[in-house]
């Protein structure tokens, strides 16, 4: 980055960041994930967020992986939205599992070639793992977990487990790098409509990365597979969560039955995961998954600050807890201070069948 060095001699970064916004063209690189030959919903939310960065934003989507599923995903990306003008595909067998070290290098070379003003990823475990590392390689401060975009360099993000909101202005040079909370940038109803005809699909030259010795230092071994039959917790319209009050993994079956009845995803509190009732990927909270469903039902959940952080944006919150003083009732729209072991069977009996 020799240009920076030169400008450094003239007083540093201030020179670049004083360029007025209206004369600066915006172009965004969206770091996308794909699965089963299609771009993941959370990455499409990142695209929604990118649209808010400014007028005339030219958006490119970056996909990596290998083989036919990557090509299928690229085709899906090229046709899934009017907002995408270019799809970049990095095909290399080491990319078949997204490791941060390789991805960060990939972002660095794509940025050096494309000079984007913004780089955006969804703040799931992929974006959280990769984007900050890429930002360090590009020597910029990223802004993570953005829930509001007020312009090309003004962002809102939650702090203190969402008990406060911080509005932050980015003063640095390009690229401005963000991860966004998918629940804050839901897909528009017409997003499923088709993209423009002329979306270029370009191959990224990965030869410099594939020769990089430092990338041999991390190896993917395995992943425990998730139960794919239930709706995905991050996207589900209804979530049924169980907490410590369920008392055992066996009892958690009640939550699962209720979720089944409602066509809902199953969530859990940290206490329930720590106690071994359910696996970690069901944890909702400050450091687990953030969800914002239409309906969130919490059974045997006390409502600790850290759990509330993960579900406070739900449209309707229902809580059932024997303890009428449980903090969850302060955030619930509808509360029942009664024994969940009595309430859940009654709900199972009386709820209409899922259509």
């Amino acid at each position, binding site marked *: 980055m020799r240009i920076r060095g030169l400008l450094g001699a003239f007083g540093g970064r201030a020179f670049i960041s004083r360029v007025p916004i209206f004369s600066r063209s915006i172009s965004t690189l969206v770091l996308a994930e794909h699965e089963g030959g299609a771009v993941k919903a959370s990455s499409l939310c990142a695209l929604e967020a990118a649209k808010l960065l400014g007028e005339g934003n030219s958006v490119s989507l970056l996909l990596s992986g290998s083989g036919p599923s990557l090509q299928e995903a690229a085709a899906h990306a090229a046709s899934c939205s009017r907002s995408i003008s270019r799809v970049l595909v990095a095909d290399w067998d080491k990319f078949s599992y997204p*490791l941060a070290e390789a991805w960060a290098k990939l972002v660095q070379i794509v940025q050096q070639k494309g000079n984007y003003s913004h780089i955006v990823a969804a703040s799931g*475990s992929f974006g959280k793992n990769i984007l900050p590392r890429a930002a360090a390689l590009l020597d910029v401060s990223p802004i993570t977990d953005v829930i509001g975009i007020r312009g090309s360099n003004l962002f809102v993000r939650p702090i203190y487990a969402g008990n406060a909101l911080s509005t932050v202005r980015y003063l640095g040079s390009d690229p401005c790098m963000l991860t966004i909370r998918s629940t804050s940038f839901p897909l528009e109803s017409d997003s499923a409509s088709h993209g423009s005809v002329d979306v270029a699909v370009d191959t990224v030259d990965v030869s410099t990365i594939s020769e990089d010795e430092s990338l041999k230092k*991390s190896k993917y071994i395995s992943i425990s597979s998730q139960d794919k039959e239930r709706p995905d917790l991050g996207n589900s319209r209804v979530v049924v969560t169980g907490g410590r009050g369920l008392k055992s993994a066996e009892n958690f079956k009640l939550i699962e039955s209720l979720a089944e009845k409602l066509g809902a995803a199953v969530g859990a509190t940290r206490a329930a995961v720590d106690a071994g009732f359910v696996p970690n*990927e069901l944890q909702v909270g400050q450091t687990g998954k953030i969800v914002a469903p239409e*309906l969130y039902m919490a059974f045997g959940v006390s409502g600790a600050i850290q759990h509330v952080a993960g579900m406070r944006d739900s449209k309707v919150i229902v809580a059932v807890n024997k303890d009428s003083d449980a903090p969850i009732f302060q955030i619930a729209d509808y509360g029942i201070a009664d024994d969940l072991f009595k309430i859940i069977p009654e709900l199972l009996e009386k709820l209409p069948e899922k259509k």
Partner: protein
Amino acid sequence: MKIMVAIKRVVDYAVKIRVKTDKSGVETSNVKMSMNPFCEIALEEALRIKESGRASEVVAVSIGPAQCVDTLRTGLAMGADRGIHIDYTGALYPLSIAKILKALVRLEKPQLLLLGKQAIDDDCNQTGQMVAGLLEWPQGTFASKVVLEENTVTVDREVDGGLETLCLDLPAVITTDLRLNQPRYATLPNIMKAKSKPIKKLTPADLEVEIRSDLEVVEVTEPPKRKAGVMLSSVDELIDKLKNEARVL
């Protein structure tokens, strides 16, 4: 082998924070401060590795104003061998912290750098990833299990899809998640012993790190308040409300 652990002093997790009326930030004066819970877990893991005989020294590092020394003393009381305080009183963002940690790593040459995955005040979840990038070391973030081998470390990570296992060559950066371990309490004898353990003080300038602020906090506000809810007395009432009032069923 030496292990370095970065620890942060934050508002205690149980405190109900208040936003200042002038919207400049969150009220932190006269509020209980503690070691960030994830940093405690990182330090605990380092201590367990040392106790298993795989490491000879655990160095705790904290960056910020003078009060960081209190947090370092707690770390020493838990069992760290020595502390380093990087003294700085201005705003510090993860990029600057990462640069300072990189300089310290070059100085101290640990084989493992452990950090908490995020601080519970800013909830950034960036520093570990950034310092790993600057060092060009492999990273194992959101670790729920760490197993050291001869020259590698196997890390189980808590990710959206479940539990992912990676194998990293040493030296490496690991950020810790909740379920990695249960941190110990500092015992009274150890608190006394900690008083004589050394804490070295340095500044970013000593490390030739320039603190640059490319972020500016414009305002800090409260989140939108939810409308007050109602307590119901029966399942029938609940189903009725959900169907006809909330219209979510």
